[in-house]
């Protein structure tokens, strides 16, 4: 059987689709896959660079969504945000499985010695050399941190929304973002010192 849906024409909102699925129309789940499949792929693809692995992660994500659909609570978040929460955890789970060790608790080190002004200056310097260093410095961060940065800077999601997606507190996320700015600043300085650009 082929599952083909033209969402633009059907125009059925997510909640109605979910209601139908929960009512027994399993095939309606294809609408959600069609609607959000590529968006989920683009999110997990930021940390899982192999297209095959990324696609498998999307598949795992949607299976998890299907299995937990009845627990979706629209009063807490939109379906899209809830889906991103599952995508976030599915991607991290896959990465942890790959490296064979949990990376649940990301390391904190004291970066109080780095002035805010240094971080402001470096993270606003768009010279090709600095952009290249920044690219390398981001690559050295944990997957959790890279996803956090992309949710904040690329998707422009609110801290509240990111807190829902990542199951962190808003206070934690604010301090983590400030810490990450300084961490990037420190790494750039180190890379500059080592001449790795």
């Amino acid at each position, binding site marked *: 059987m082929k599952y083909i849906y033209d969402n633009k024409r059907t125009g059925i909102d997510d909640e109605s689709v979910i209601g139908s699925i929960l009512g027994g129309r399993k095939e309606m789940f294809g609408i959600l896959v069609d609607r959000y499949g590529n968006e989920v792929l683009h999110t997990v693809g930021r940390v899982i660079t192999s297209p095959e692995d990324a696609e498998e992660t999307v598949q795992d994500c949607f299976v998890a969504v*299907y299995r937990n659909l009845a627990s979706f609570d629209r009063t807490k978040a939109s379906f899209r945000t809830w889906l991103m929460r599952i995508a976030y955890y599915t991607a991290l789970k896959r990465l942890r499985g790959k490296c064979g060790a949990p990376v649940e608790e990301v390391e904190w080190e004291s970066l109080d010695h780095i002035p805010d002004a240094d971080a402001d200056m470096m993270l606003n310097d768009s010279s090709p050399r600095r952009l290249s260093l*920044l*690219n390398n410095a981001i690559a050295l961060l944990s997957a959790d941190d890279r996803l956090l940065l992309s949710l904040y800077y690329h998707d422009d999601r609110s801290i509240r929304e990111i807190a829902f997606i990542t199951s962190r507190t808003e206070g934690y996320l604010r301090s983590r973002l400030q810490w990450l700015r300084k961490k990037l600043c420190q790494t750039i300085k180190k890379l500059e010192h080592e001449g790795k650009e």
Partner: protein
Amino acid sequence: MKEKNKCSDDLALRRVIDEQAQRAKGMKLSEGFADRLMQEINDLPESEPMGLRPKASVPIVRKIAAAIAVAVVISGIAYAACHVIFSSGDAPVGTATTACADVAVEADSVVSFEGLSLDSILGVVSAHYNRSVCVRGVAADSLRLTTVWDCGQPLSVFIETLNEFDGLRLTDRQDTIFVESVKVED
């Protein structure tokens, strides 16, 4: 209109992250992805409807067993910590409003410490996060605090909370919670 998130502006950082995200946008789901996925969903046992927990595989059973073991250990430590406080004086000087035995029944439970000594609190918390405690210049046994701990949250969150108390400075380094006193300016 949606306002851009700001950590100052961080234009360069934003630009690099946008470029990386654009690379991911080059990915496309392969042809027939939806069909394969729907097939997998159709193949799920009927006993696995939405919202009900899937049948646990062996590794999940092991994880649950490990979680229960951790819960038992933590509740024991919490009970011991509270017991010490309640039995150490003529009258109870502090209470933990959460029933001690309930501390780790729920992984995300919130524990309320009321007037407990700092070392008792840290005894419970450090065991949960598998940390050692190193106290410098603070009478942790006589310092009594009232605070709340969400044991489902990272340790850093609880440390932030404790650092809001005047005169205390806690840091988490090298698997150890360091507790130091800081001078309070008037």
